[in-house]
């Protein structure tokens, strides 16, 4: 049995009376891409900051390669962070920003030159080493922040909503680049985001957080197909929650709902065209609204029409609060 790259054991953090992180435990393997997903205030960023060392845990352990780092200062931990607003040093050139960690560790000058050069090449910024950070675009600054962290070859790379400030197109591009870097370098990535789509596309596993705890942890598919609670079903992707009484619901994804002549009857209340797909909203007899998502080339129902909705048994998951 190998030691996980990073393991959190019953990690907790209290700020006064407020519990930001409440007994979080998980283990991450070498080279794994784990996303901490959650709404704001769910404890995902605090968890990341605990691993980085910017916060001291109230309880629990943080094991990096089996060694407890929970009370080490950040500058002694073999982890590096990509900050939300990049946090590039404004008084240093791009080159000096990237070389900062190596200089602080007292690496020889020619090694620094070689590694900084390679890191800048890796993020395709080798021509811009002499620039000041403020002379770069948001996407370029993002790449500098990435190079500045990765040049140190950390055991774990922590990313705190690193794409939050970029526009959609650039985000998509950086998502692909980040996953490629993760595969290529074999460095463990811990990625914090509130964007479930981002989490689904990039991660090996997702830990969905809620109120300082992990609601569910697993591969994206598992969270999408087998949500453990109503919250998970609702947070990851879109879903229909059909009450079955006793504080339980059936969670059915819109793409699993078919419209036809047999099944549960209802009235079409809206037909929403969304490019490749059409979403048909149907109100059932008990008032529950069910959304069906089908390819746009299929014939569509009209508002006011009475139709029937049905779904395969194995596509419906019973969830509770």
């Amino acid at each position, binding site marked *: 049995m190998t030691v996980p790259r990073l393991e959190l054991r019953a990690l907790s953090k209290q700020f006064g009376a407020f519990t930001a992180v409440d007994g979080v435990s998980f283990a991450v393997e070498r080279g794994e891409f784990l996303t901490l997903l959650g709404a704001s205030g769910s404890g995902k960023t605090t968890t990341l900051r605990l691993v980085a*060392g*910017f916060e001291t845990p109230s309880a629990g352990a943080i094991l990096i390669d089996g060694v407890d780092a929970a009370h080490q200062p*950040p*500058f002694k931990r073999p982890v590096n962070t990509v900050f939300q607003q990049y*946090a590039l*040093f404004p008084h240093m050139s791009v080159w000096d920003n990237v070389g900062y960690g190596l200089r602080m560790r007292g690496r020889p000058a020619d090694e620094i030159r070689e590694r900084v050069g390679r890191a800048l090449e890796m993020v395709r910024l080798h021509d811009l080493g002499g620039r000041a950070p403020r002379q770069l675009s948001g996407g370029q600054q993002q790449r500098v922040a990435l190079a500045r962290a990765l040049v140190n070859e950390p055991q774990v790379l922590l990313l705190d909503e690193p794409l939050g400030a970029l526009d959609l197109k650039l985000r998509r591009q950086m998502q692909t680049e980040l996953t490629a870097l993760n595969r290529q370098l074999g460095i463990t990535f811990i990625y914090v985001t509130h964007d479930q789509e981002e989490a689904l596309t990039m991660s090996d596993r997702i830990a969905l957080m809620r109120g300082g705890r992990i609601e569910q942890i697993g591969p994206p598919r598992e969270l999408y197909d087998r949500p453990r609670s109503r919250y998970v079903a609702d947070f990851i992707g879109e879903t229909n929650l059909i009450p079955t009484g006793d504080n339980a619901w059936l969670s059915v994804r819109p793409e699993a709902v078919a419209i036809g002549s047999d099944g549960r009857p209802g009235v079409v209340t809206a037909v929403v065209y969304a490019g490749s797909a059409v979403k048909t909203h149907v109100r059932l007899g008990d008032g529950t609204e069910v959304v069906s998502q089908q390819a746009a080339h299929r014939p569509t129902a009209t508002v006011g029409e009475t139709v029937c909705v049905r779904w395969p048994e194995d596509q419906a998951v019973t969830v509770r609060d």
Partner: protein
Amino acid sequence: MTRGAKTLGVAFPVVWVIVTLLLPYALLLVQSFWRLKAGVITHEFTFDNYRRLFGTPVYPHTILYSAGVAARVTVASLLLAYPLAYLLAFKVGRHKQLMYMAVIIPLWVSYLVRAYGWKIILGTNGILNGLLMAVGLTHAPLGIFLYNRAAVVLALTHIYTPFALMPIYAVLESIPASLKEASQDLYGSRWRTFVHVTLPLSFPGVMAGCTFAFVLSMGDFIAPQLLGGSDSALMVSNLVWSLFGVAYNWPLGAAVSVVMLLLTLGLLWLASRLEARWNYTGARVGAPAATA
């Protein structure tokens, strides 16, 4: 707002600045070119006042001496203000506002009271002598504490340190916490984080604080008068004071004032250039307004 009210709103400050600031400076400049003939100021254009100013050793010497006092005050204020501003900005937690007020409140106490206070502490019947005698270090009061340059520097440092502190505090406050975290994340210890990140980013505030302390103490004339003893005659503002007063040589007094004004403006210009060059955090520390 009506057009008329708007015009008035702009006109009033403009008129105010012209009447209370620019006009007196213009009069001062004109005065400095007039001739003093047998104790009477005559409206004849001359460079004599400037010739005499730079030709008589006592005047440049006084300006240099004042600059020396101001430089000492600046260094002492900086050494006090920087650590204090650092503590206020980063270490006092939720009592920050209260502590900041505690530093600023002395500014509301009359300048004279603060300067005079040092007389009470340092004088022959003062608290310091009383203390020294009480613990048996001396048997008779010592007259060495008061009426010298050190006393002036001490009092001016006390008076102007809050002015040095404010811009330093402002710039330290404006440094994003994430930059310090980034440095620590990249293996920078607390000390190296201070040296490589916090200190260089606080330069604009240091520059503004130094300018405040230097310009204000260089132009001061009450503390040297109260605490400087015979040396007091050698601060440049005391010189101006006596030229306009007992000496009744307004043109020469005006010439000294003009030279001081130009020196100060040059300094402010230089300081604001440096502040702008080093300003990365967008802090508004600003070059202090001319008080000369």
